[in-house]
């Protein structure tokens, strides 16, 4: 298994942020994207937790990549991820108790988050540790960006605040309660995804527009 093939660390890093954004481009890890984006604070805590788990899991998988058996690799991935999720879960319960209560089951659900398993499969089980770390940080930043965009829309429209600071509510905004309820999550993500697609299609040459999609 040569470590020189495949994209370099820099390419992996940049790819994760926008071109292969895990949420908007690959539609991975939708549960936390919908569930914790009612406000910026829980969204950013979730992004931090995913960053930690993804970086640590990528490091470990990359280090043991030559020992992995093809038919057992998914099990090894999930068990590695579960160990680090337990660490971050205990950490949040110890130092950020109210946030840990608010995120509830969505922290343990990071274990089955497709983003992390797909990064283990695509990158860290094939490439060197440094590349794997760059990839993990890039993808986590892309994930954080996506969470932030959805949480901004939902928190501003839903409660008129941003990170708990009054922005729209200072101007007399009443807040659309539906945006912080489950339907608002689906609607906000659907419309934002449509916006991203629209922007992507517009950037391409008009010739693609003629072709029937």
């Amino acid at each position, binding site marked *: 298994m040569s470590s020189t093939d495949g994209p370099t660390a820099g390419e992996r890093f940049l790819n994760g942020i926008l071109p292969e954004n895990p949420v908007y481009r690959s539609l991975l890890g939708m549960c936390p994207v919908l569930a914790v984006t009612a406000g910026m604070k829980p969204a950013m805590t979730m992004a931090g937790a995913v960053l930690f788990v993804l970086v640590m899991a990528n490091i470990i998988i990359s280090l043991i990549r030559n020992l992995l058996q093809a038919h057992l690799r*998914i*099990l090894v991935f999930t068990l590695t991820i*579960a160990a680090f*999720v337990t660490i971050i879960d205990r950490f949040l319960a110890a130092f950020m108790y109210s946030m840990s209560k608010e995120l509830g089951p969505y922290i343990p659900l990071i274990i089955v988050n497709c983003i992390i398993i797909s990064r283990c499969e695509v990158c860290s089980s094939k490439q060197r540790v440094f590349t794997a770390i760059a990839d993990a940080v890039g993808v986590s930043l892309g994930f954080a960006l996506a969470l932030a965009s959805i949480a901004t829309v939902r928190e501003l429209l839903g409660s008129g605040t941003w990170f708990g600071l009054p922005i729209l509510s200072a101007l007399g905004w009443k807040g659309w309660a539906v945006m912080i309820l489950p339907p*608002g999550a*689906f609607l906000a993500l*659907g419309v934002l*995804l449509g916006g991203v697609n629209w922007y992507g299609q517009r950037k391409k040459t008009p010739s693609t527009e003629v072709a029937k999609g």
Partner: protein
Amino acid sequence: MEYVAQLILLVLSTALIHNYVLYYFVGICPFLGVSKRVDMAFGMGMAVTFVVTIASLLAWLFTYYVIRPGAPLATWVWVTAGGNPATVIDLSVLSYLIYIFVIASSVQFVEMYVRKFFPPLYKSFGIFLPLITTNCAILFACLEIMKNVSGVPAAEVWGVDKALVLALAAGLGFTIAIVLMAGIREELELADVPKALRGAAITLVVAGLMALAFMGFAGVDTGLAKVMIGH
């Protein structure tokens, strides 16, 4: 009577009011991915119901006998190994590792078993089984059971009956949501959707409207509880 009423309320709450897909957002990946045709969606729903029931049964057994503070099996091993009987054994920190291991291995075994002994059944939903290992809904059901078994007062600890009812209701709720979505998407094929919204985007918007409709069930359980139990 009160026991039956409690179970009915649990089913209602899990399948409709707090629907796994539309309220807790777990199981979104198959909900978006396998909801193009009604028959496929129904197969996926059945597969999830099947796996979530088995995983919940195992999760309840492990939580009750091994993981929870003072669990009988863990304590017995500790005492047999020469530990101090007064110590309370609490393996909660290992719960996630145990659950994910239980889910992954049970899915593997179920797949092998169904393929060997029930080929028609395997044809109808076997292809979905490996996908379900990483389905959040299964782990979420296990966590829900853990919440009601480990660290609650002794009188409120869930028995295996409630765990199974929860699992079946969760599978039922998932099936209802994904089949409804597939029905809508089949009609949507004929609609003139703006190009940017085609695919996942319009599905999410439709899911939002469905979630809005399911919010109408909120409060049904408290009303029904008043009628059936009287409080």
